[in-house]
């Protein structure tokens, strides 16, 4: 079968393996060693690593630059790009540059509003939105053209990803928005962190019923809870996040010193269910500032060793 990008993530998914991706937030400074330290925990544990792009609208080392460090360390990056900080010229330029350096996956996002971050006074660009970004990357890859229609000399063969939030209102529309992303040209989806399993099952069922899961690889988003405080914060403060009360009760019931372990246990149970769930092709593990725990989680979730696909 002919691959679109030839990335490891694409190969793993195309071969029918259950994919397992990780995430790494670049540092708030120029220290590349921090990227290397975090990457070391993820090596051999995941098929690709998302490199966030000024996540929560806080300035960090640029996503493509941290992605290059990852490549040098022998890991495969999934280069995240948000629409908040660049116009279509800068986006296309970065896509070309990233690909020239060997980056083969990218994740197309709108981006958190700048008001959340450390420069709330800044101008939000949003020249194009995430849907239009997906279509632009596809046009560059499949038609060999810039957004303007001009011919590209050298085509970026990206494996195109996007996010989906099955929980944010209006729920009824979420599966249609997924369909729009597929029509725009997305190859894989990584979902928002899942805690409300019932709602997620319903969303996947609808996606299955509409035939969408045959057209796109869905990776279920998992973030293990480290503490009750973190769970409460995500429940109350993070827009679009759905943390049911019984998840919090379960963590509270774990007892002193055992909450983090209970969080990992819950995550592993989720992963077990996702392995069997029709329409789900993998898991995206977002162990936020908990990269060193990834080997343990991967081990306990039974996703090791990672497949090697030629």
């Amino acid at each position, binding site marked *: 079968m002919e691959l679109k990008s030839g990335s490891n993530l694409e190969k793993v998914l195309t071969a029918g393996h259950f994919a397992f991706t990780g995430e790494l937030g670049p540092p708030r400074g120029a220290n590349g060693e921090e990227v290397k330290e975090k990457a070391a925990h993820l090596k051999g544990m995941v098929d690709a690593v998302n490199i966030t792009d000024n996540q929560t609208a806080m300035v960090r080392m640029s996503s493509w630059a941290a992605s290059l460090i990852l490549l040098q360390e022998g890991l495969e990056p999934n280069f995240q790009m948000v629409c908040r900080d660049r116009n279509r010229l800068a986006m296309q330029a970065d896509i070309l540059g990233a690909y020239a350096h060997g980056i083969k996956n990218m994740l197309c996002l709108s981006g958190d509003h700048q008001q959340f971050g450390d420069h709330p006074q800044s101008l*939000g660009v949003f020249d194009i939105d995430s849907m239009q970004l997906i279509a632009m990357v596809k046009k560059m890859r499949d038609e060999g053209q810039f957004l303007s229609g001009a011919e590209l000399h050298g085509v970026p063969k990206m494996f195109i990803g996007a996010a989906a939030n099955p929980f944010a209102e209006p729920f009824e529309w979420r599966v249609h*928005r997924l369909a729009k992303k597929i*029509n725009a040209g997305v190859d894989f989806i990584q979902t928002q962190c899942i805690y409300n399993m019932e709602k997620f099952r319903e969303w996947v069922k609808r996606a299955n019923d509409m035939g969408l899961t045959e057209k796109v690889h869905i990776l279920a988003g998992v973030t293990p809870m480290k503490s009750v405080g973190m769970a409460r914060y995500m429940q109350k403060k993070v827009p679009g996040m759905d943390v049911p009360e019984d998840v919090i009760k379960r963590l509270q019931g774990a007892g002193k010193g055992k909450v983090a372990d209970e969080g990992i246990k819950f995550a592993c149970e989720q992963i077990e269910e996702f392995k069997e769930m029709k329409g789900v092709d993998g898991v995206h593990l977002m162990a936020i500032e908990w990269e060193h725990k990834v080997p343990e989680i991967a081990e306990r979730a039974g996703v090791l060793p990672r497949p090697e696909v030629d």
Partner: protein
Amino acid sequence: MIVAKRKPFEEIKNMLKDYKKVLNVGCGTCVAVCLAGGEKEVDVLTAELDMARKLDNNPVELGKTTVERQCDREYLEALDSMVEDYDALLSMACGAGIQFLAERYPDKPVFPAVDTSFIGVNQDVGWYEERCRSCSSCVLGMTGGICPVTMCAKGLYNGPCGGTNNGSCEIHQDQPCAWYMIYERLSKQGRLDSIMEVVPPQDWQNQTPRTVIQPGYKKPEKD
């Protein structure tokens, strides 16, 4: 209408501190309706300036007048005979009116007394809300009469994003999510089909100064 907000008094006073004869020019249209720069506001600001400059031992000779529309030559003409008596002009019109005034009297320093805010609606007396960014390519037909460019904090053409929070925007609980409202309205009208297709990137037309010449009209030819 165009909605404006009067600048802080200290800022206005500071701009004018070196001028001894100032004419305060109000505008009788949008800024009068939104209580920022009409005849009444001209009276109040002029009195405030007069008093403050006296207290500062820096008295100023102030004139005041309000024209029907500062963005219209026909009405500005009435000022021609007055302006020469003053060494600076203060305008309480919107940004367009201020510039048209400055353009007509290029030798006179012109200062803004208001911050022009947005194109909006009158929710109640003294309460105005933005509704239009004048993008030059209206999509309201597709979006159920709710503007995603203005009302979505990210100006998304293919929303809603993942930050919708029980119908609110991620930036604030009190800010409704534009795309949530669009969905609800179109759903009730049985018109969800109109947002099923991916909207292509916008051809931004507000990146250079725009001109409109209506059908049947033309710019006068240059000599």
